[in-house]
């Protein structure tokens, strides 16, 4: 049963990484330039999980396999006043971050994190009831 606690830790770590990535997407929802000041908007990041412990994929658990960029098109917003960023037609490219989708993902990550915590609490109660046999 101690294995379940280790597994729970891998689940918590994976969900935290997912939450950090969602937070990064939300923070950059209006970043229309990259770090070098070029006219390239921020691309949304996606986290992909795979079964298996991060240290040994043969062991049960979960780990973050990759964090990749979402290749969907950028949002085009009509802002002719922004001479620096607008194209010839007056459209400015904005990050492909969708606020609603990020909120839904955030809720899912929170619930998954809570499920892991509940599982670890249950594991602790089972271990302590087994240990009471010694007393």
């Amino acid at each position: 049963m101690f294995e379940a606690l280790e597994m729970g830790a891998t689940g918590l770590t994976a969900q935290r990484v997912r939450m950090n990535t969602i937070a990064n997407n939300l923070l950059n929802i209006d970043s229309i330039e990259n770090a070098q000041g070029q006219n390239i908007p921020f691309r949304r990041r996606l986290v992909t999980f795979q079964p298996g412990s991060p240290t040994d994929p043969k062991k049960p658990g979960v780990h973050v396999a990759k964090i990749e960029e979402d290749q969907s098109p950028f949002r085009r917003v009509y802002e002719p006043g922004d001479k620096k960023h607008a194209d010839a037609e007056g459209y400015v490219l904005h990050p492909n971050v969708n606020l609603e989708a990020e909120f839904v993902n955030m809720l899912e990550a929170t619930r998954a994190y809570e499920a892991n915590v509940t599982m670890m609490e249950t594991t602790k109660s089972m271990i302590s009831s087994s240990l009471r046999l010694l007393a």
Partner: protein
Amino acid sequence: MFMDHILNSGSTPLLQKMMDFTAARHDLIAENIVNISTPGYVQKDYSVANFQHRLQDRLASSQRSGNGSPRFDDIQPTLGDSNTGMLFHDRGNRSAEQMMSDLSSNALRHNLYAELLRKQFDSMKSVLSERV
């Protein structure tokens, strides 16, 4: 011989075996829960009914033959069909509700068996203390 008879008779070995089963099943349910967001992950579970039937059969056959206390060491849990019928677009069949209800029911069973076993040990202790 005396201690072996006390520890391996009655419901004690059966309770021990059920506790082993619930502990093993808990690890499997934990694996399902940590993979709740993993694309393509298919839930796994041990069949409780199948395991209990095999224990019951062993108990009944040993009672019929009158060979004394039955042994359950060779009875191992087997993976059951955990297909919930719901398949996500990523080919996974994860069901948070089923996982959490399995988790709590399995933990309750485990705690119940542990408590029953503890009561048995307490009875043994009181009997032994009377003898000395």
